[in-house]
């Protein structure tokens, strides 16, 4: 029952529920900066790792014919 009333109380006080522990201003641009930087920090790791992975794959494909021709050489 207490839980129910807590939820209702939180619903009646949306401003308090939105309070942010790291916000030091109420400016609109501030929230947009948070959104933009969060998005950047989320997207950057997959982009970086994907680029490195693609670089590996491209080099592997480039090297494959060379390796195969090397393997076919008769060994002494």
């Amino acid at each position: 029952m207490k839980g129910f009333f807590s939820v209702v109380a939180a619903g009646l006080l949306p401003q308090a529920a939105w309070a942010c522990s790291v916000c030091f201003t109420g400016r609109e641009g501030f929230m947009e900066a948070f959104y933009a930087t969060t998005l950047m920090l989320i997207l950057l790791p997959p982009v970086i790792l994907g680029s490195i992975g693609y670089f590996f794959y491209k080099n592997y494909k480039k090297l494959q014919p060379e390796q195969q021709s090397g393997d076919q050489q008769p060994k002494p």
Partner: protein
Amino acid sequence: MSANLNPPLNPRKPVIPNGVVGMLFFIAAELMFFAAMVSAYMILRAGVPVWPPWGQPRLPVWTTAFNSLVLLASGVILQFARNAFSKEDIAKSLNLYRISLGAGVFFVLFQGYEWVQLIGFGLTMTSSNYGGIFYLIIGLHASHAIAALVGLFIVLGRLQDPARERYSQAVDFTTIQIFWYFVVGLWPILYFTVYIM
């Protein structure tokens, strides 16, 4: 007999040399580090109504633009040095490499001179958030530039060593080239974010 017992080694060429792989992952980590710094800058900036804050000196946009061009030229010249190296024109490659290195040293010294001027005008680490984040971001880039220049000097010594294998020299060249391109490529982003935006 000995040929059967000790067959000549036929080592497979690595897909990417170890040094290059190490450098790529190091740069991936550094990119995230700088992304965090840029994020901090953007949030600090968005939190105040006027940026730069009142009473703080404005950054030297045009002189730094000139310095940025020097740094970009350094990156382009290093690529020319690489092309000459690939064509086995070692003398030309070394000359271009030295010019690129010189341009890099100029960039760092010019930045240092700018900093001395800014400190003279009252922009210090403790003067405001503006000063703190400026020196943090630009200083971190400068420290990377200095580290890359040390690496370029070390690789120059190795490229001049005739006893060193050409393959090892190529790997050293590629590794430091990636690091220098990171320093050069990151700078326009930082310049735009901190000096222009």
